[in-house]
């Protein structure tokens, strides 16, 4: 006996098996990101007043990424519709777009990560703090060169939204004056820890979704010739996963970039 309802929906539930499976899986993913979001809410609400960063992200890049993902969600849906109306050429085109958009998203994300990881907060022996991007950090030299500014207290670095006209210049700091040096990685504070963890997990999901869609677009397209409806269902199911990943970003973007 073959497994029924792989392609045709079961009459009383109205869905085929994989659709039940993917929605159940997405429910678990809601709880996964829900757990991380509740960590965010708790840590932010529980933080001492004035210690939670604002404006530490590049809003332009974030907005571009948001629109890139939204567009990819649309192309994903259209790729499925194309399968439904048996226009395979359109399917190939739209999912090629989806894959390109996914790649764009990941590249922008990588750039943002690099941007953060090359940004340093340097505490000096005289009590001041130098903050900016590392230009030169040659171990053989006795100085580091950053493109940034001096501030008096660490609290000056917290709310960048409230500060107008931040002037940055090249600053050369002798190593002898450096008390402590830390890059803006997840170890730097809880906001960045949450940022890297949330967006990192999200990016892994983008990668996974991209691989699945890439497989269907590439080697997996063989199934179209023999069982087009089965193939269409696979496109729909992977599309649902992709839309979910977009949904997570819809909440990540405002929470991490805009607030």
């Amino acid at each position, binding site marked *: 006996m073959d497994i029924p309802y792989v392609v045709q929906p079961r009459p009383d539930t109205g869905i085929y098996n994989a659709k039940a499976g993917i929605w159940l899986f997405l429910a*678990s993913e809601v709880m996964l990101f829900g*757990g*991380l979001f509740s960590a965010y809410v708790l840590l932010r609400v529980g933080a001492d007043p004035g210690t939670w960063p604002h404006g530490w992200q590049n809003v332009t890049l974030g907005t571009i990424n948001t629109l890139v993902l939204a567009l990819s969600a649309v192309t994903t849906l259209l790729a499925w519709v194309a399968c439904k109306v048996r226009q395979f050429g359109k399917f190939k085109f739209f999912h090629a777009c989806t894959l390109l958009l996914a790649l764009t998203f990941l590249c922008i994300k990588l750039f943002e990560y690099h941007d953060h990881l090359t940004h340093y907060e340097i505490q000096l022996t005289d009590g001041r703090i130098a903050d900016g991007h590392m230009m030169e950090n040659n171990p053989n030299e006795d100085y580091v060169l950053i493109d940034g500014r001096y501030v008096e207290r660490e609290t000056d670095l917290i709310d960048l939204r409230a500060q107008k006209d931040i002037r940055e210049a090249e600053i050369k700091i002798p190593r002898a004056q450096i008390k402590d040096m830390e890059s803006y990685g997840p170890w730097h504070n809880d906001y960045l820890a949450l940022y890297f963890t949330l967006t990192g997990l999200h990016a892994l999901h983008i990668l996974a979704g991209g691989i699945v869609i890439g497989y269907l677009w590439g080697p997996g397209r063989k199934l179209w010739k023999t069982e087009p409806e089965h193939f269409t269902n696979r496109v729909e199911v992977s599309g649902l996963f992709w839309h979910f990943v977009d949904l997570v970003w819809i909440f990540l973007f405002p929470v991490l970039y805009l607030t």
Partner: protein
Amino acid sequence: MDEIIHSFPAHQEPDEDPGHDEHAHHDPGFWRGYVFSTDHKIIGIQYGFTALCFLLFGFFLMLLMRWQIAHPGQPVPFLGPLMAEILGQPAAGGVISPDLYNSFGAMHGTIMIFLGVVPLAFAAFGNYVVPLMIGAPDMAFPRVNMASYQAYVLGGIVMVVSFFIPGGAAQAGWTSYSPLATSIPTHGQAFWIIGMVLLITSSLLGAVNFIATIIQLRAPGMTWMRMPFFVWAQFVTAFLLLLAFPPLEAAALMQLMDNVAHTSFFLPTGLAIGGKLAHVSGGGSPLLWQHLFWFLGHPEVYVLILPAMGIVAEIIANNTRKPLWGYKSKVYSVLAIGFLSFIVWAHHMYLTGMGTKISAFFQTTTMAVSIPSVIILTCLFISLWGGSIRFNTPMLFALAFLPMFGIGGLTGLPLGFNASDVYLHDTYYVIAHFHYVVAPGTIFALFAGIYYWLPKITGRRMNEFWGRVHFWGSFVFMNVVFMPMFVQGMKGMLRRMADGGANYSAARVPGVIDTLPGSIMAMHTWILWGAMALGLAQIPFIINLFWSIKHGERVGTNPWRSTTLEWQTPTPPPHGNFARPPQIYRGPYEYSVPGHDTDFTPQNEPEAPVTAPRISPVPVLH
């Protein structure tokens, strides 16, 4: 007794030729057939054997711990030199050092729960039996099923390997509380987290499979209220795994980041380790870990018990030859347990400084969730009334489950009340409580299931005499091991003490109030002997199991004369289970229905034409 043992009908082939399905499957060979199989029955067996091995390993860890508790600081007999050889410094001189004791404790809990009981109760029994019980050819997603088993094995390997890395295995309890879990100088904690992520992945894949299968692949006529109670129990268990595990996965990811990337999700500002200020950013919250952990932790205990209740229900119905009493109540109760279990978790956190309002909320929901559990247990008890009880080995274990789970459940009530929990939290009372529910509770049900379903898997039954030896030995010694722990706990003995409480004993600090008296400390020896005897009692079971697979008495396809669908297939069920989708005509417990020739009517037996009511009583089989 002979009557009971020999009541099995002679070996009979089923009337219908099972035939081959349309796509002729040629022999897949050893690797595809037994190692990389996508057949739910093979996967069920794989899960079962792997889980039983882990249960045994966890048992050995417990024996080592009980030795240390009863004889603190003394070398372990026989195994001491071997341990020193393999584990090095932590077992120097064959003595279990406190750090090693802690790692045994953490891993005993982790292995028993996540590598032993859950895979056996949910994945092994569920995988084998559920598709057969609902008339499905396999699980909805066979390849996902195989992937879930492989993730489980990988997770198990990571956990076991962690014993052998420098620094040893995780030592912060199976609950892995931060900041301790981040401060312990071993990578074992990171291994633990990675192992957990793999196990969680395995459970999630399994849960998706079970729910989709039960929703989509029920045979024609198998309505929701005609499903055996075991299937309902697995259905709710799958939902618990699906929705409760991911927050722990999120928390585990964050704790891994704390361990490896030096973040401070759970590390508070001003944290000092070893007397020095830790070089971390701070700002984190240890309580956040606890909330996220117990959000899973509580539903997890229902994952441990619900499949067991399902198994016991099936065996009781079958061996009383009457329908389960209160089927509908049990279904609604199991759904209520599933729902409520998500909102009780902070009763594990009463001592974390929560305020009265939130404690009152969790106390209320905790009391509420005990009600459906009591309903289910009561229905099972009432099901015995007026039954023609057959006291075979599965039934003995199923019957013992009832009072044992009763003790375990009732002793949970003082822990659920905030006020009494202030005293009992983190004492041996808690250990006794949860072991009663899982050990003479769930594990007895799992034993019952093995004795019950082995004839379907192999066509042979296990030896009845040795089954009874196994039963009585296990029953007596489970109580010898765990009953004293209630007393120890109420006297104030705390959990997780490597020296067995010697530091707080009256012998060490005479004249101080509320120290542990000699009578309490003496119980350690009783418990150690009880545990060793319990271990010995398992030997007949292990031998019986392996021997019976090859040489057990042959039985027919439905030796227990059961109504449920899994017994209406050939033995063992072929690939695809049923040649055509079975048609279901009735509920799952049509036993001793007046007017029928036999005392059981399988779910898929077509309706017979109505005959005149018989005057003679229906024959009753023992």
